[in-house]
């Protein structure tokens, strides 16, 4: 190829290129070069992001068919209760919520499925709707399969009855639980009636907690109405070991201990009835108090 030919092809090329795209390419190359020392930039939102993760892009039908638990799979069902517990009213989108209509069918399915032998409930909740919270707590406490609850991070307000609803309960050493009175959200119509109503709602929570843990009615109410601890409210924040000391939670522990206990409970349930009773004393904190009469 002569130099003249070379030049002519080059000039042809140049004329065939439109300048806008060439300009853009140059700018991109320059920017890439300039950014060499900078940390990688976040990719733009649209298409490049999809390009970023090629193995993840699968046609949704290629992912296999629905799998119902089959032998070799876990015999434990894990239920996560996070954020706000959402009840009859949908909370604004900035709230991270756990909805009762999601939790309740899962509990029904776990109870009914013969392959599931135990249920682990992981809690990290700030509270929420009283009705929904109590409904979940009642569901968990009435399951016939072994249930273990584990409070990680926090199990506040209506999270407290849920934390106590399992056959065994654990709390992480650093986890906290806030016990405070039920406040009013909304309009006050008549003061005595409102008070009566809230008192009743509160009594439901207190009775459930007292019935499902080793805490006494008196201690729980003391914690609930304590002043000088919370800045915005009356009540108490208790941290891991304190919750165990008050009898609200059975033991301090994390995931390992909770799973170990759940497996023990599953093993115990597999034994014939006579032997089940014999193995009971090894599980120290299982003495649940009978439901007390309404203190009125």
């Amino acid at each position, binding site marked *: 190829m002569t130099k003249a030919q070379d030049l002519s092809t080059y000039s042809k090329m140049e004329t065939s290129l439109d300048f806008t795209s060439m300009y853009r390419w140059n700018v991109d190359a320059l920017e890439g070069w300039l950014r060499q020392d900078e940390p990688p930039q976040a990719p733009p939102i649209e298409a490049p992001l999809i390009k970023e993760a090629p193995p993840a892009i699968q046609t949704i039908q290629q992912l296999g068919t629905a799998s119902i638990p089959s032998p070799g799979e876990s015999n434990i069902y894990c239920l996560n209760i996070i954020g706000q517990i959402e009840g009859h009213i949908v909370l604004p989108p900035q709230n991270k919520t756990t909805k009762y209509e999601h939790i309740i069918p899962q509990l029904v399915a776990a109870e009914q499925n013969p392959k599931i032998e135990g249920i682990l409930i992981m809690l990290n909740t700030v509270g929420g709707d009283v009705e929904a919270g109590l409904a979940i707590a009642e569901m968990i406490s009435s399951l016939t399969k072994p249930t273990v609850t584990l409070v990680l991070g926090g199990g506040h307000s209506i999270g407290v009855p849920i934390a106590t609803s399992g056959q065994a309960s654990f709390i992480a050493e650093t986890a906290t639980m*806030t016990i405070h009175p039920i406040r009013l959200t909304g309009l006050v119509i008549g003061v005595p009636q409102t008070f009566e109503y809230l008192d009743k*709602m509160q009594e439901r929570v207190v009775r459930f907690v007292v019935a499902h843990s080793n805490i006494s009615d008196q201690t729980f109410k003391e914690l609930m109405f304590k002043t000088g601890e919370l800045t915005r409210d009356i009540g108490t924040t208790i941290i891991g070991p304190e919750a165990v000391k008050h009898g609200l939670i059975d033991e301090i522990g994390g995931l390992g201990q909770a799973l170990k206990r759940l497996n023990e409970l599953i093993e115990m349930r597999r034994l014939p009835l006579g032997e089940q009773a014999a193995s009971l004393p090894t599980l120290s904190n299982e003495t649940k108090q009978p439901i007390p009469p309404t203190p009125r």
Partner: protein
Amino acid sequence: MTLYTVIPEEEIFKSASQEQTEQAYEFHEMAWEGRLLLVERLNDDYIRVERILQPCGIQDFLNPFLQPGTVLQLNKT
């Protein structure tokens, strides 16, 4: 509805104007093969998994296709 929570009410029920300053989350529930997923719609064909609301079993949480942040293509039939 009686709320029993440690989060202040004004934080839960933020007004729309306050909300606009923050990132607007647009999550949808999507049923897929017996599972209920919370997903973010990227466009007509792609979704991003936010979390599993209702798994088929505990092993779903280990499924790489259902990990939070995974982009999935919807199959149009």
